[in-house]
């Protein structure tokens, strides 16, 4: 079991809110855009929570190096991999 994935799941559920709990499990293949339908302002909240949880992770900078298209297509696994490479 990937620990980072577990943390990220918790953060996502926190950001999305219980009333919108996703009916499918969040996996490495889950997409933030088409599966979770995360809005951009929710992505801000997600970035902030991850930054607070992982001091060495510069999530905003990592995202700023991507094109908007790449951000929209991001999968949960991409973020997990990024966090794990920072640690």
């Amino acid at each position: 079991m990937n620990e980072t994935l577990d943390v990220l799941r918790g953060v996502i559920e926190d950001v999305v809110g219980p009333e919108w709990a996703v009916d499918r499990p969040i996996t490495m293949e889950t997409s933030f855009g088409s599966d979770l339908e995360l809005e951009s302002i929710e992505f801000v909240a997600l970035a902030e929570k991850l930054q607070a949880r992982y001091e060495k992770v510069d999530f905003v900078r990592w995202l700023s190096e991507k094109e908007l298209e790449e951000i929209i297509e991001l999968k949960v696994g991409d973020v997990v991999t990024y966090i794990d490479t920072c640690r």
Partner: protein
Amino acid sequence: MPLIAAAGRAFHVQRLGSGAPVVLIHGLVIGNLATWFFGVAPRLARRRSVLLYDQRGHGLSAPADSGFDLATSSADLRSLLDAVEGFEGSVDVVGHSYGGAVALQLAMDEPDRVRRLVVLDAPLPPFDPAEVAAMMEEVDAEQLERLLALDHQQFSDLASKLAVGRGRRGARRADRARHLREGTTVTADLMAEPPLDPGRLSALDRPVLCVYGSTSPFRDRADDLAAGLPDARVIELIGGHLLPLECPAEVVRVVEEFLDE
């Protein structure tokens, strides 16, 4: 989530980087601080202290039923700047769309608080009823993005991809649209906004950079605005209305050149 109390309400703010202070103001209805957060803000934050905030009733700031006029929006920003460490003095101000009009209003109301000013593709009052009506009708942000970007193929394709959300995101957007149309004074505030006072504009002795999109519906406003200001110039970037999303690196390049002068 960082909330700051100002003007008697809670504003969601984000701060990035360190250096000379610059505050970024998003547009009305379809905007929130996410306009900047993933593109313009982190680039500017490499050398500056960047403050982002959600305007009243937008993003994660407290909901609001009224007060979307320029005077109130400018007063909100002034209170917020008073409350944020490092922003109590003279700061650089960058506003997109309606946020650009708020930036101009702040500079006229509180000239001591503004060092340099960047107006990004701002419509200016009096607002065209047809434009405002179209915005209110198409207040679903993704539809509007697609509409505004029709002339910009790459962005248009992207916006179409964004627009597939019919579930959770679609429901929330519909809720927000309904609230803005039926539960707030946003349309009335926009329509009641008087033209910016030419006398006050001509007395604004701060350098102003007007950055407009080549295919934006507001492109023609840039030259009129600059002509009415004592120290203003216009830069046209290839793109439509949503420049901070379409070409954040280009926006940052021209903004930094101007702020560094």
